[in-house]
């Protein structure tokens, strides 16, 4: 009896390990296949542009509104702390560096994963469930080239643009609160910001972060959709996995990238 229990437990562990390895192997082959099909996404430019519209343009509302409010809150909180040290003229620097280096790419990435990543997974998963991907294969059209690659590239292009707009609206929100509402001098707000924010060190590194997050979210979204079980429950789980895995990847990658990019700040 005891031996049976042990054997059953070992079998379950073995099956789970084999499943994980199979999934990892599929993910690796899938990644290689996407890379092979990337040039095709540019040949089918109209499809890629369509995905930029669905993933990027349709995410604008949530990105712009969130950016505005994050900037406004950042200004209120920043002003409160900076005033204690008599440094309230540095509000522009605080807001700009926070947004451009961290909050812009990270929060925009999290919102992008929730809004666009989940939609991509659900769409591809439903196409699989309703046999549209099989139909495409039977028509001698590769779904990786026709469906997956344009969505992947569309996400990579959209993400940095959305992060830039998020930071821009955040800075504008901070200006509204800091300068218009609280009354900080506009010259010192913009002047200090201009002097302190470095294009290569701050803006370019923030841009690189957003590109990396775009690759991570898009890869997870298309993989989960393509690998979803073809049932309603399977698509639902895949969509949830996309949001969870994308969010965790963004936060983990952000730490790793920050370590490499901003070592000069004392890490």
């Amino acid at each position, binding site marked *: 009896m005891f031996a049976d229990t042990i054997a059953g437990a070992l079998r379950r562990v073995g099956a789970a390990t084999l499943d994980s390895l199979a999934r990892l192997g599929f993910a690796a082959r899938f990644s290689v296949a996407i890379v092979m099909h990337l040039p095709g996404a540019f040949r089918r430019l109209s499809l890629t542009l369509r995905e930029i519209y669905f993933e990027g343009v349709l995410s604008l509302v949530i990105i712009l509104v969130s950016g505005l409010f994050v900037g406004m809150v950042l200004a209120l909180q920043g002003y409160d702390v900076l005033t204690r040290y008599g440094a309230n003229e540095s509000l522009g620097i605080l807001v700009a560096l926070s947004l451009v280096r961290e909050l812009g790419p990270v929060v925009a990435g999290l919102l992008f994963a929730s809004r666009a990543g989940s939609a991509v997974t659900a769409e591809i998963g439903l196409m699989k469930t*309703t*046999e*549209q991907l*099989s*139909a495409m*294969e*039977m*028509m*001698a*059209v*590769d779904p990786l080239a*026709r469906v997956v690659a344009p969505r992947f590239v569309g996400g990579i292009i959209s993400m940095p643009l959305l992060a830039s707009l998020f930071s821009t609206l955040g800075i504008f929100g901070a200006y509204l609160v800091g300068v218009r509402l609280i009354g900080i001098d506009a010259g010192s707000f913009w002047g200090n910001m201009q002097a302190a924010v470095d294009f290569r060190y701050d803006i370019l590194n923030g841009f690189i972060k957003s590109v990396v997050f775009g690759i991570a979210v898009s890869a997870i979204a298309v993989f989960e959709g393509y690998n979803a079980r073809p049932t309603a429950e399977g698509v639902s789980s895949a969509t949830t996995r996309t949001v969870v895995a994308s969010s965790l990847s963004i936060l983990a990658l952000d730490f790793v990238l920050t370590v490499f990019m901003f070592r000069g700040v004392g890490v």
Partner: protein
Amino acid sequence: MPVVETAAVSPTCPTEIAVRLTGVTFGYDRARPVLRGIDMTVPRGRLVAIMGGSGCGKTTILRLIGGQLRAQTGTVCVAGEDVGALDREALFALRRRIGMLFQFGALFTDMSVFENIAFPLREHTELQEELIRDLVLMKLNAVGLRGAAQLYPSELSGGMSRRVALARAIALDPMLVMYDEPFAGLDPISLGIVGQLVRRLNDALGITSIVVTHDIYESLKIVDYIYFVSEGRIIAQGTPDEVRASHDPFVRQFVDGQPDGPVPFHYPAKAIGREFASHVR
């Protein structure tokens, strides 16, 4: 018209036969084989039905013919080519000569009816847009839905979706069309229309057709030959007249719709005496 590409003809596969399966076995895992030694021949120009209960492996046979699955043993020959031996490029070239209608149509939901049928033409030909328009409308006219060209799949009934999918399946003038449960879930009128379309298109276009279905009455009306599959084996076959006259227990159960017989009513289980009242012992 569409480019027709041919790969090297396999010496083991005769070109005069549209589809031939020889000793084909297949299983998704080793413990549960789905197909166990299937032998099947579909001559060119014929309309053949594969029938059997749900989950008996009918659709798997279509997937093997289309190269979406590979047989574990045996050979699958389509138009003189050994499907299992083809590389991806050759397989795609073969698929351009095969049309397939999926169980619920599998229309692309983000495209109109017109765009759905134009899809294979745009992907595989360099035809001018005017010519594509004419071809699409001709295919739609053949299935009686020319007037529905601008509708979206969500606006179609089940029968209309099936007919649009049929028009899309014949868009590239294939040599073989496979139908996966074309009659499932249709009202009697739509069922009759789809059945007649399958027969008419087969004869008018000179194509070979394979219909996977469990609708015995509609099949007996339209097909040339029927294979019965049960538990992964072909257990009976014949022309519609032979099937009607058959005394084979499985065929009789299938044709007469009897709930119990060679296909048991109960799923395999422990003896009923051991299942119930076990606490008494």
